[in-house]
């Protein structure tokens, strides 16, 4: 942050080294895996400690049992495990129902995580994915419940509308950043609350939107044509995940194969140099925040049209916040987002089975998630644990800092 505010080029808040990870790709992958392993191991220790606190005695086998149940609840059909009988039908290895749930959680996580990662690339920290997600979901609900079009065009229109709604919500911090130098982190934190409160009001007390028959206040449900169709038969998996994968590819292409993407990444690495080279940094900031908002909004729209159907006034979702963890673990790389979203989605989808198997609150997975990104944040410390990689760290950071 600079004292000159708007006079300085925008996008200088983030240290690209800490975000995108310094060093080569091999080193990044190694530290990421180490972070995940450490998070999972510490989570296991926590399970043992919690069992002690519960007065169940020292149960060293409990973490393994819990993690197995987690895999079981998220995609696997493990044999010889009592509580999974109802999910697996024909003795295959993949439990399609469970996998469907995982993919449904992965859809909004991928899109919102992509939103945060995209912001990172331009050196902007989009904490506002949550608000943009909510706006996208609400707009999709309104468009989806209004009979404008029929057939598959309606769902496309609703998704696009949700994306535009999110983009509008992301445009505000982008504009304030470029025009007045207002720090996007604080503005987006505030906008998250504003979005939640205003949408809560619209969905609960405005007859234009509220579903009169719903007991808990929510908007009207999206019409059948506007809902995302089921992708795998006999499961809840909707087409949203394919939309998410397509979007990931589009963003990857934009970032790494177009001039605009090059400009965005240049601003992210060194905004002063980018400005000196003639890149319109203010324009890039506004555009990046709008696109990031659109991605989160698309995530909200997919979640709404695929899962919740009507926008609940008290939409208690955390996808927009979990997205930050997804983007961090992915080192802000679109392809990495796919993997880290799947990991966190599996944790989430398997949390219930895990909690039942270990007789422990399901919130354990939130702690594991936090521990993993704690280790990602403390990457420098992790690197000291990897002796084979220590020598490589000197060259790359110097290049990035130049």
């Amino acid at each position, binding site marked *: *942050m600079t004292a000159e505010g708007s006079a300085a080029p925008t996008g200088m808040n983030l240290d690209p080294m*800490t975000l995108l990870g310094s060093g080569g790709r091999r080193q990044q992958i190694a530290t990421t895996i180490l972070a995940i392993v450490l998070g999972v191991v510490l989570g296991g220790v926590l399970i043992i400690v919690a069992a002690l606190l519960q007065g169940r005695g020292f149960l060293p086998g409990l973490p393994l049992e819990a993690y197995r149940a987690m895999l079981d609840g998220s995609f696997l059909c493990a044999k010889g495990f009592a509580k999974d009988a109802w999910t697996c039908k024909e003795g295959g290895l993949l439990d399609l129902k469970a996998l469907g749930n995982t993919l449904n959680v992965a859809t909004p996580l991928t899109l919102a995580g992509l939103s945060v990662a995209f912001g990172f690339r331009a050196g902007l920290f989009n904490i506002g994915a949550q608000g943009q997600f909510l706006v996208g979901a609400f707009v999709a609900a309104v468009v989806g419940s209004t009979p404008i079009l029929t057939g598959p065009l309606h769902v496309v229109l609703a998704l696009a509308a949700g994306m535009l709604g999110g983009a509008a919500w992301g445009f505000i911090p982008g504009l304030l950043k470029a025009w007045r130098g207002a720090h996007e982190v604080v503005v987006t*934190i505030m906008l998250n609350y*504003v979005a939640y*409160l205003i949408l809560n*009001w619209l969905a609960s007390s405005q007859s234009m939107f509220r579903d009169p028959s719903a007991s808990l206040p929510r908007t009207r449900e999206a019409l059948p044509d506007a809902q995302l169709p089921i992708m795998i038969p006999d499961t809840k998996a909707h087409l949203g995940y394919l939309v998410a994968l397509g979007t990931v590819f589009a963003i990857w292409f934009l970032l790494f194969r177009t001039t605009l993407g090059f400009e965005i990444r240049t601003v992210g690495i060194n905004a002063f140099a980018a400005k000196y080279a003639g890149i319109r940094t203010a324009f890039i900031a506004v555009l990046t925040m709008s696109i990031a908002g659109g991605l989160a909004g698309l995530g909200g729209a997919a979640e709404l049209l695929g899962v919740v159907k009507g926008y609940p006034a008290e939409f208690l979702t955390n996808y927009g916040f979990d997205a930050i963890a997804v983007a961090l673990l992915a080192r802000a790389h679109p392809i990495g987002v796919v993997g880290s979203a799947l990991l966190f989605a599996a944790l989430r989808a398997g949390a219930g089975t895990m909690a039942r198997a270990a007789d422990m*609150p399901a919130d354990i997975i939130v*702690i594991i998630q936090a521990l993993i990104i704690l280790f990602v*944040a403390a990457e420098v410390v992790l690197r000291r644990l990897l002796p084979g990689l220590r020598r490589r760290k000197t060259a790359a950071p110097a290049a990035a800092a130049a």
Partner: protein
Amino acid sequence: MTVATPERLAWVRRILRSRWGVIGVVAVVVLVGSSYLQIPWIGDLSTWLIQKAPPQAYIFVQYAVPIGFGALCGLLCERSGVVNIGIEGMMLTAAFVAFLAGAYLDPVLGSPWAAFAAVFFGIFAAMLLSALHAWLSITVKADQIISGTVINILALGGTAFFNQLLVSTSGLQGTRTLPKIQVPDQIADIPLVGWLINAVFNQGPIAISLFVFVGLLHVLLWRSRWGLRTRAVGEHPKAADTVGIDVYRTRYTNVILGGVFAGLAGAFLTLELSNSFEDGLTGGKGFIGLAALIFGRWTPIGALGGALLFGTALTLQLISRIPSSAPGGPLGEWVATVPPQLFGAIPYVLTIIILAGVVGRAIPPAADGVPYDKESRG
């Protein structure tokens, strides 16, 4: 002011010469006049401000206390150049630990003492988290926003996990709330100042300490060696380092001391305002604290002002539909139609406006959020 006035009325002249004096006189005249004449709208507001709001002011203060402490936590961190968006998580953890300590200590120490002791456990928990934040952002030089985010997620998951593990299943009850000072009616009824005494002192010890800490920090920040060093480190760490100030140590001290305030905010919620804990209890108060800090332009008194304003806005959310507490007349009817959610959004919208610089731009300390590297040539 060419008209000669008698010497004993010199104070009148002085008031009328200063801009704020004139504004004050006009405000008093408008308030009293419009209220007395029962002018719709303005008069309703004046009547509310003169008659109904003062006796309720202590409730506004109660809402403002966690926000104010959150802002003080942010103040110490950001003045020394460390952005702290983990205030929310620190507050939440402190609230839970304080609740838990109070519940467990209750059988041992008895009613008021268990709560007093539990406050220190809450503070300690928040200090541990802020030490983590300090280590990550100062020594590891990780991105400070990421560090704060990690703390928030960790706190949300951790408190929910242990709350269900230890409290929900066992039906553990919190210890009784900290004793409040009861302001006698004779004092609360003193015209003009009674309500103010009531607002500040009709509170528990933590709430009252907020005002003490704000005053103390105001003096220390601008009049003490610590304050000068803190501000120097937050504005230009390289220069501070050159004259021999230990940048890392100053930042560590400030961030960990900031944890004390986050801890007090949390302890206030579970030991003074209520004696129970629920998941996500803080509900964004840490973030509103951050907003109050910005609103108050990174000063202790400004932050307190922001906290009081935002606390009042949040209280209005509750009282706007209660005739005995809300304004009367057409204003009252209008206020009752304003959706409560919009009152709730006031702090956030105001902060965005302030940040956008539409009404007086807010400019943070220059080195806010920038990790300091002793060896860099920057």
